[in-house]
């Protein structure tokens, strides 16, 4: 397990249209992928992404709905501007932009999320572990450290 890249996977709860996909993500995700389910990509504060990066994530995947198909009309539009800019900002201080990956899913994209995660994982394996900003002390059993 240890040689597999650690991936933080932020998923908008509305973006997987096929129940099979959602079921796979909810219960059969590989152990090196950590799922953070959010009500909308608009809920993803850049700080969440930073916490993942500081916590030692080698890659971050953000999946959401297509621009015009947001469940909350425009949450993903707000998210896209912020997170896009944030990933290039992280690149500026040394966290490779290729480690942040966006997946915008459509109705017919059944099964695509599995493919995207697999592709991304092999891409991150090539890049190697990300150590530049991984600074957080692992959480103690049962909660925060301070």
């Amino acid at each position, binding site marked *: 397990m240890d040689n597999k890249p650690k991936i933080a996977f932020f998923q908008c709860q509305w973006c997987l249209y096929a129940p099979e996909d959602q079921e796979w993500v909810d219960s059969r995700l590989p152990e090196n992928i950590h799922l953070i389910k959010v009500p909308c990509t608009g809920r993803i504060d850049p700080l969440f992404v930073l916490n993942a990066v500081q916590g030692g994530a080698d890659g971050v995947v953000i999946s959401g709905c297509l621009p015009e198909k947001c469940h909350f009309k425009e949450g993903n539009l707000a998210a896209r501007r912020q997170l896009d800019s944030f990933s290039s900002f992280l690149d*500026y201080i*040394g966290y490779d932009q290729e480690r942040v990956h966006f997946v915008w899913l459509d109705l017919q994209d059944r099964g695509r999320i599995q493919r995207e995660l697999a592709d991304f994982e092999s891409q991150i394996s090539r890049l190697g572990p990300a150590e530049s900003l991984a600074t957080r002390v692992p959480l103690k059993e049962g909660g925060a450290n301070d």
Partner: protein
Amino acid sequence: MTELEAKIRTEAARLLSEGLVDVVVAFRKEDAPLRPQPAFFTNVEDLENLVYNGLCANNLANYLTRFPQETRIGMLVRGCENRSVNALVVEKQHSREKLTLIGIPCTGIIDWRKVVALTGEDILAYEDSAHTLTVRARHQTFALPRQELLHSSCLRCVHPNPLSADILLGEMLPEGDPALIRERVESFEALTRAERTAYFKQEAERCIRCYACREACPMCYCEECFVDHNTPRWTESGTTPAGTHAWHIIRAFHQTGRCTSCGACERACPMDIQMTYLTDKLGKDMWDSYQFAAGMDDQTQPPFASFTLDDKKHFQVGGKQS
């Protein structure tokens, strides 16, 4: 008293005595050498303490959000302060009608640290003129060339003139060169990834988390900052690497499309940490992606608040990153 100071006092006295404003925000004579202090003048007699010179380092727009919305404020503004006021008006922190801006084209703020490095700390008096700063120390008098003492943000200043002042005092100055900020960001981008991280860590990890940068910044007016929030705690609150990195990254990122590059954060920092290379990068990104510069008018919403469906051509469609 310089000619400019006299003009400011006259205007401030007029605004107060005619009852056009409730308070004039400007600077008063300092208690510590080289550090004129922000001051709030509510009656004409106090105006004899008003000073203005190159060492007035604070961004006065910072105090805009500390008054109730209905207060009529007269404010001394230089180029950067005027842009900060504009950005705050866009964010509805005060209504423009209640503001009277006394604009001064700015010849640059003198970094007191650079002065002290040359003269030592025993400073008795100083005088700021167009090209020289004359400092009288205990044993010696120094005549220092002003241009070499300017704060680094002011050397890169693009708009030294107030853009929307109600009263303009002094001569308009030529605009600065926008390439200077751009070149600085680009030269940092040209470093290797490891060098960039090393520089960022070297700067951020000196941080003592005093939040002087936040207090000095006109755009940092949240009632509760993300670092003060403790249920849940979003970041480590100590001076650990994780805590200081998170503070520097997110503080800068919250300024995206709002920072006017006044450099007040760096001037306030007791540890002399470089921060503007972060905010300048975000400013450059906003210009490149959305042709937006913060504070140029008091109407246009910043990019993160003005998203539209037209963005969709930038979205990833069909598996390829746009």
